[in-house]
């Protein structure tokens, strides 16, 4: 039988994979993908909490569902914007490797 805790563990794992991706990846596009994973972990957490605890305590509204829909929408906008900015820097520097974004120093 699936419990809330199983979904929470899935979400923690997904968040950790995303966190690792942000810290370890070199390509800006893959970093943005990793951030998307983190946001999806957030969505799983919200939906699972809203579905399992529905009706108890303050969980009477559909806050969790609404939050998830908003986060999906905002994440889509975020990716659009990030890809546009990555395209800009690719035109100017011909690379998306974040290690080479080192123009600004002391």
């Amino acid at each position, binding site marked *: 039988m699936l419990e*809330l805790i199983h979904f929470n563990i899935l979400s923690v794992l997904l968040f950790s994979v995303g966190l690792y991706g942000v810290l370890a990846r070199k390509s800006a596009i893959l*970093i943005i993908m990793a951030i998307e994973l983190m946001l999806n972990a957030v969505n799983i957490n919200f939906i*699972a909490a809203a579905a399992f605890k529905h009706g108890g305590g303050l969980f009477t509204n559909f806050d969790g569902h*609404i939050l998830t829909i908003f986060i999906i929408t*905002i994440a889509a906008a975020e990716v659009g*914007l*990030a890809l546009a900015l990555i395209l*800009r*820097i690719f035109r100017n*520097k011909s690379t998306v490797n974040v290690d080479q974004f080192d123009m600004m120093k002391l």
Partner: protein
Amino acid sequence: MIEGSNNLLLLTPEFVLAGLALLVFTADLIIPEGKKEWVGRIAVVGLIGLLFVTASTVMGITQPVYNNFLLVDHYSFVFKMIFITVGIITILMSEEFVKTNLTSQGEYYGLVLLAILGMNILVQSQEFLTAYISLELLSFCLYVLVGYSKFNPKSNEAAIKYIIFGTFSSAILLYGLSMVYSVVGSTLYSDIAQVLSTSGFMDPVAMLGITFIMIGIAFKLGIVPFHSWIPDVYEGAPIPVTAYLAIGAKIAAFAFLARVVIGVMLPAEELWSSWKIIFAILAISTMVIGNGIAIVQTKVKRMLAYSSIGHSGVLLSGIVVFGSTNGIVLESLGYYLVGYAVTSFAVFSAITAVTYNNNIELIKDFAGLSDEKPLLSASIAIGLFSLAGLPLFVGFTIKFYLFSSISIGGYLWLAGIAVLASLVSLYYYLIMIKSMYVDVPEQERAHADITVRWPMWIVIILSILMTIALGIYPDPLVNQLNEISDLLK
């Protein structure tokens, strides 16, 4: 539905602002190339009108809207007025820069307006989803504005760094929110505070969630150890946008943090008594590291970026005494933010005027400025002296108010460290002033081609006058700010 809590007339300023932003985007389509400064002027006139609209519709009203999702009160009123004024000044000081340096000029002004809309909703939100959405509205505009100088690789790079750090911190904030939600079942500040303040409540998931939320906000505000994006983004952004980040976005993030602390943490006394120590440690490290690293900087924008990190630390040390004083600290924080904004505009507007048609960025390139452009260098010097906290200028009075309310709250040692940190800041501000007034320039007449038009003169002269006037006679402003301290009583 709660009767009377859906009075949409209270949101008139936001509706007008959104309409104005769309009007500005439309005007950009109609106004021909080469006359795009009129787009900015429409925005300025609209914002000045909006000041009156805001004052006439929401002044002195305390009422929740949309079932407690938003709270229209004096605190949000004061901050709305600050944001609109910051917007007006930013647009005026950008005009010449935008004209000479940027492509697709009209949309710049529309994005500045949308960012103000985000800030306005952010300060009055009483619920994390609303706060998150308005924070993202603000951040998205800033991501675009930072990368607005399309053909400048530095600006591109700053925008990439900003969006990666910004979305990363939003993801952390949201994960914390999802943990808090799975315990509490609501995202309203008041509901969360109610659950947290149950005596003996020590749910580790909720505690970790609150920590994640605070980390997310600390990223936005640039608190050490989450400050690493600030110098790069400030350096790469077009300089009026740097000013907007350092003044508008910083005030907004701070107002949000104060709202969250007042709404969520203060009612839970056990939680707050341990978080106070964390805030104090963060404040000290921010002040020490920000001001310490600023000493070795050779570029003006990076020096100002680290100095703004130092100022975040001072502001954070004001938050530590929330709950220990009867509201006076909120008043002095409001005064500090206004004084900081005015002073920073004196510095940033003059630096914008100096740098927009030549690419100087090192501190030593400012040598000889005082002989060729005395008023510009006087503006920078007055601003820097004021930021360091010398008497006569507003920088002294704001620090005096803030540090005395911190010591009233029982944190004399914290105020002492803040005083020492501003002493250190005087050193690197003096390096800049020495460069302008004492050093001999490498080439003669290096700054000869600086032309300053009237919108910039208005900004420069107004900021100098306000820097001095608010320092000598702060009463009218402080009386206005007095009422926001009710939030803490």
